[in-house]
């Protein structure tokens, strides 16, 4: 069974069809990029995959559970247990240190564990920056803390929203290397991006347009392999 199985989902906002009969299945360990111009339905799709919204029609099976049928509370639980989120704006709690920001995710998931949180920071190369506040970290470092935070509860899927959108080239490379490493370790990655270079690192590129899947391509790295 696929990890994520979207069957003919549509999302209506009044008369507006944000998503129109989209079907998509994502296997465990797969790396998917979702592209598309503004208003193509990327955000809506991401909200549904991230269990923050429900489709108006169709089935959205997350590990076999149809999130279209679940209530808000249950969606929160699924998100907490199965999804790790990485944002374009990083979204750190700016009065907590790097390690505490990681521990917030542990706190909502189960139990804060500083040692484990420090290990996660080690993985993203920020062990020595653990006690720094977000304001003392660069954008790249903040994004790496967010990746560490996304990983800390061992999610089934890392859902990244323009993860490199606010990063310079050097930091973009670091982030992508990190994703590659996660991919190698078997983490399922869904990356929403504008950037063809970032998309190309993925195995499969889904291009949305007007709420429909306009095109599915193979990532350059895969194609080239």
């Amino acid at each position, binding site marked *: 069974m696929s990890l994520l199985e979207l069957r003919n989902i549509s999302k209506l906002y009044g008369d507006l069809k944000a998503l129109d009969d989209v079907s998509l299945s994502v296997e465990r360990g797969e790396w998917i990029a979702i592209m598309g111009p503004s208003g193509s339905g990327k955000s809506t799709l991401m909200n549904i995959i*991230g269990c923050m919204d429900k489709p108006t029609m169709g089935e959205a099976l997350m590990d076999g559970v149809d999130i279209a049928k679940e209530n808000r509370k249950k969606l*929160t639980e699924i*998100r907490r247990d199965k999804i790790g989120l990485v944002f374009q704006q990083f*979204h750190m709690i*700016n009065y907590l240190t790097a390690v505490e920001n990681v521990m*917030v*995710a542990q*706190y909502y998931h189960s*139990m804060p*564990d500083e040692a484990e949180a420090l290990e996660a920071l080690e993985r993203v190369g920020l062990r020595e920056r653990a006690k720094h506040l977000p304001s003392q970290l660069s954008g790249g470092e903040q994004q790496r803390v967010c990746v560490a935070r996304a990983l800390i509860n061992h999610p089934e899927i890392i859902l990244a929203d323009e993860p490199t959108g606010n990063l310079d080239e050097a930091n973009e490379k670091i982030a992508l290397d990190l994703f590659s490493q996660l991919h190698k370790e078997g983490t399922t990655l869904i990356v929403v991006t504008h950037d063809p270079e970032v998309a190309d690192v993925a195995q499969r590129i889904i291009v949305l347009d007007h709420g429909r899947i306009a095109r599915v391509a193979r990532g350059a790295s895969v194609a080239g392999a």
Partner: protein
Amino acid sequence: MNRRRMFLRMVTASLLRRRSRMLVALLSIAIGATILSGLITIYYDVPRQMGAQFRGYGANMILLPGDGGELTIEAAQDAMSVIEREQLIGASPYRYVRLDMVSRQQSFMAAGVDFEQVRRTSPYFNVEGRYPENDREVLVGKFIADTIGVRLNGVMELTYQPAAESPSEGLREGGFAPGEVLSGGAEGWNGGRVYVSVKIDGDGFIESVEVDASSQTPEIGGACETEDFTSRFIGKKLPVALGVDVDAITGATVTSAAVVEAVNNASASAAVAGSKTINYTVSGILDTGGDEEGYVFLSLDGMAALAGGSGSLDVMELSVSAAQDELERYASIINEGGAVAARLVKRVTRSETAVLSRLQALVFLVTAVVLLLTTICVSTTMMAVISESRKEIGLRKALGASDGGIRSEFIGEALLLGILGGASGALMGFAFAQLVSVNVFGSSITFQPMLLPVAVLVSMAVTCVSCLLPIKRAVAIDPALVLKGE
């Protein structure tokens, strides 16, 4: 780090981060708690404070003779022993006797009192002159003084007549004592009174007459003071008749007739055996605007000297600094004894209770308004905090915070604010109450330790209530907010 420590870390860090906002909230809670604890202190202290003030309105409990018995000073003091010593402001004995001022043909009630206690139980007494200082001085009510024309420092000749309510008509049975001096008065020219002193022998014949006609026209009626006129009475037997026994002075017939009438009155008024007359000096005139003005006050010993008897009272007035329910309790204990009957002066206790309950209602109302204002202020601040941190709340939810989790974090912040604000407010409130007490009532108050937990709990409750609406907003925030990268 366990969950609780992480929770505390998040909550305190969040408060510290929004320092300026939270200071506003903290300040409003602290001020609310200040006024709350201040007013609670005053609320509980007011009865004590006002009780002492109210005692200026006079006695609030009286002791009367019990079943069929008489009220002695000893019995009254025995009954009073149930009252806490420091609550008893004053205990004033009263003994009432009807006395006459024979020369003016006036009869009135006299009260034998202990002037030192009167000053305590009736501080509103306004005395022109001074209180009597010995047994030969009297305090005269203004009404009596005006009616019979007694002046400050004047002499008042008071007569006690057992079983006689007013001067009887006619001559005394059994004749007169040799050399006895009788006095009397009558209305002369133009409403002025003339007074006489008549000395008689044992058979009722007049030996001499002295006339006070100072109220009459000196050149006309004044002639009645002369020996030319008074000698006309000598050797005559009482009663005398004008034109028969005594001829009038030509041109002063009205005054002459008044003197004759006064002489006859003198013989009639001194008519009861066993009577006793003592001269007192008027040391003060009493002006209260009330019934007291119709009494003559003298010391208990002074009264005993005139009317005999001692130790027996008609009433004991008590001024007790206690609330109505406590007074009622004292009264019922005293009444159980039976020897003495205790009554509350309802006029006083009721108005005291009414004033107190209104004052307390006012304090209560002000407290409620202050708490409401605090609630609004804290609520507004929290509302601002939440709209400022929509992103952060969205993030927390995206990271898996449940609605309950968000709620408990904000309630945690609210409780922390409540504890800090309440504790500081309780201390400031005590200072506030102390200030009010010293400046308004002129006495200090002691800190009630219970105030601290009460103020803290109420502050916590107020902040929690204040946060209900803001928290509802926070919980409604959509986690997807964080994904729409702005």
